């Protein structure tokens, strides 16, 4: 695929460990007044011409946000966040009237995407990937719309969905992640700017991988996407999310909410490669990534599978979860989290078994280098009615150097005698014999580390769609540059 190949080329051309996407685009912007207030919430809603119910929903969420304390369970050192320091809405002016086709798009923006490895035009022609690109807060363009339309698949920005498909949005938004869940979820619900909406109708297998690339551009823009994916009975969809952000000194706040709903026999596969700016080697700058991702397997025999490769962000706080409500439903979580320099990550999953014969699988690989701290945190809970349920968890951590930390915090709760939970975890250092072997065969230490770490992560990477897997492998190696030697 063109996009991927370009990205790989760029990755290959990287001679040093500097962040490759560290450029920014000069554009005129429409910004909300700085800070967070009811006015800002109203401003965002008004900018988007939202119906009254949506505004009410946001305002209620804002009230909840003001009441909830910041979640504090993670093993993270999060500097006090001053919510008044951020802009909650910014939109390139030329997008105020949305483009009807790619030709109408500001060439500056297209150029930016090209640097990111996502030339929309080529993409449309060459690749099977439909891209709904989010540039700052507004969805720029959606390709492949027609083909998807013919199948009855709705793939658009959430803003558009609020206008065009209010009944679906109303029914499902906040049904998986309640507004009251925790303060980041409430904040997102109040000020979310854009994101993707997917609806796969009954019996339809989505023929292409749907994909969104996010990009944070404007200075001090908190980015709050809201994604909602609904797979109706007997349907299937695979969704890819890739993220890059330009280099900035100030920390940027990001709090996305992603909700998935799988009805009877439906399957959703959600893959993420996250390489947002992690900050420099001194820990300056970088994205704060506070994401809430949750899927509900509502229907019987439904399946939700999360795959994530988390290499970026200064702080990652993220627990893609599955609520296994339907009988025979399945949840999966495959994760690679790499932290280097002064990055911190606290990530994992929750598998809540409610229906009978439900099963879940968790494979987590954490790699910590430099002065980074990397924590796996996960919950497996089997309800007393969830007979014959199963979980298997494998959690491995790798330490590179002795200034970093690797931590494992699983919660394992069972109230059912017919169910089985198995959990295994290991922590070790990178195998020196393997390193030696590779270097004896002529690899330099960084390539050798990249190779070995990729082997360590293989079980997870192989769950990524092909076009992502290669990019992810490169990323794994790149994010560990400078960690040995």
């Amino acid at each position, binding site marked *: 695929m063109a996009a991927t190949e370009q990205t790989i080329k760029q990755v290959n051309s990287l001679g040093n460990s500097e962040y490759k996407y560290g450029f920014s685009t000069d554009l005129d912007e429409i910004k909300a007044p700085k800070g967070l207030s009811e006015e800002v919430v109203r401003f965002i809603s008004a900018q988007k011409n939202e119906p009254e119910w949506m505004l009410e929903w946001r305002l209620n969420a804002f009230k909840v946000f003001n009441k909830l304390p910041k979640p504090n369970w993670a093993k993270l050192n999060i500097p006090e966040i001053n919510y008044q320091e951020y802009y909650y809405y910014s939109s390139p002016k030329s997008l105020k009237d949305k483009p009807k086709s790619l030709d109408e798009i500001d060439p500056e923006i297209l150029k930016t995407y090209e640097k990111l490895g996502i030339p929309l035009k080529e993409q449309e022609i060459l690749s099977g990937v439909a891209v709904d690109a989010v540039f700052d807060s507004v969805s720029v363009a959606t390709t492949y719309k027609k083909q998807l339309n013919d199948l009855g698949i709705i793939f658009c920005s959430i803003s558009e969905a609020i206008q065009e498909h209010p009944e679906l949005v109303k029914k499902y938004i906040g049904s998986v992640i309640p507004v009251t869940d925790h303060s980041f979820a409430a904040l997102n619900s109040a000020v979310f700017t854009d994101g993707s909406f997917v609806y796969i109708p009954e019996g339809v297998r989505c023929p292409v991988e749907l994909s969104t690339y996010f990009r944070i551009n404007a200075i001090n823009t908190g980015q709050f996407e809201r994604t909602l994916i609904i797979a109706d009975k007997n349907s299937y969809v695979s969704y890819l999310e890739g993220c890059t952000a330009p280099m900035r000194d100030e920390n940027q706040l990001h709090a996305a909410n992603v909700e998935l709903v799988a009805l009877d026999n439906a399957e959703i596969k959600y893959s993420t490669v996250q390489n947002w700016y992690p900050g420099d080697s001194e820990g300056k700058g970088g994205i704060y990534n506070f994401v809430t991702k949750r899927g509900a397997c509502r229907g019987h025999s439904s399946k939700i599978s999360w795959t994530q490769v988390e290499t970026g962000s200064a702080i990652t706080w993220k627990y893609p979860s599955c609520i296994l409500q339907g009988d025979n439903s399945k949840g999966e979580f495959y994760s690679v989290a790499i932290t280097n320099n002064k990055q911190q990550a606290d990530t994992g999953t929750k598998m809540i078994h409610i229906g009978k014969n439900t099963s879940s699988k968790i494979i987590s690989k954490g790699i910590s280098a430099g002065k980074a701290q990397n924590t796996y945190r996960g919950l497996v809970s089997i309800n007393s009615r969830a007979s014959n349920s199963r979980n298997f968890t494998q959690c491995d951590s790798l330490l590179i150097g002795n200034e970093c*930390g690797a931590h494992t915090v699983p919660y394992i709760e069972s109230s059912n005698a017919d169910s089985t939970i198995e959990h295994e975890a290991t*922590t070790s250092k990178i195998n020196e014999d393997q390193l030696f072997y590779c270097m004896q065969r002529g690899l330099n230490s960084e390539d050798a580390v990249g190779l070995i770490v990729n082997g360590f992560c293989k079980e997870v990477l192989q769950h990524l769609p092909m076009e992502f897997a290669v990019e992810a492998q490169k990323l794994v190696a790149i994010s560990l540059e400078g960690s040995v030697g």
Partner: protein
Amino acid sequence: MSTAVKLDMMPSKDISDYAEKVLLNNPFENFKIENYKYAQLHKSITSNVSLDEFKADLSSISSVKNIKLSDTSDIDLLSDLNKWNFNNADSYFRVNSILERSSKKIDLDLFREEIVCLDLSLFKENIHLLKASDSPKTLMINNSNLSEDCARSIILNLSENAKLNIIHYNISNSKSFLYFEINQQNNSNIKFLSFQSNNIHTRNEFFASLEENCSLDLYGLNIHNYGVNDNYSFIQHMKPSSQSREVFKSIVKSGAITNFQGKIYVDSIAQKTDGYQMSRSLILDNESKANNKPELEIYADDVKCSHGSTVSKLNQDQVYYFKSRGIDEEQAIKILQKAFLVETLEAIENTQIKEYSYSLLDSRL
């Protein structure tokens, strides 16, 4: 002061004030400390089943030295709370039981007998045990004779090269909250088994700090028909080349709850640490519950640490194998339950005590 106070924000000098105040109220109302996640301390647990009157009877073990009050001396300072890489405020019992009571010192090397028994019903104080020699000794700690609720700290200091085998019998219908602290100097080693059955409500905290080249084997054997049984362990490796091995096995039925929360902490200088932690539970019916939270917190890279945790029912293929050899289901289940637990009994070195423990287990199945 509200009891929902955020202890983790509190500087340690305030903790004693806090502990005092909290004692006056119901300490665990809204108690949200992570390390007590499953302990249900806010609930006053009363068992609505008929409690069994069983007590561990240690009288069959011969030539035992029973520790009396006259064998002890007074001691002031018990524990250096600051040496722990653990937020003091996160353990109510370790702070509280240390601050609350006077303490008695017992030097285990003063007794000639190989087996020494400490009956907690005889002491109202906290206990500070010392052992310096490498001569074999088994310490039995019995809280089976308690008739009332009990909160105690038991602190154990092992000097260089010292060795000790400990078995803790916790079979009582009272509520007991025990804080065990183990301080191991270089080359010392400990094998510790806590044998627990049918407590109304029990919380055991095991804190161990290991210096160089030590070994610690910590085992838990749990078999419960009622009550809440909560075990917490925190093992810190502070120097290189030590080994810790934890195995907690639990069987619950008829509404009993068993919990294991444990952490292995490896300091950045504690290279070559070998840490292993295994918690396994068998749940025999849907009224019962098992919660496990095995944690690793690791700051050194040249280490080998792992944990595993399983929750399941009895392996039905094994039951089938027994039956195919003519053994009926009831007996097969008994044997398999025993087989599941016996690994922990191997921690006992003294054959007399080992035999007694096996028979004790048989009587509990």
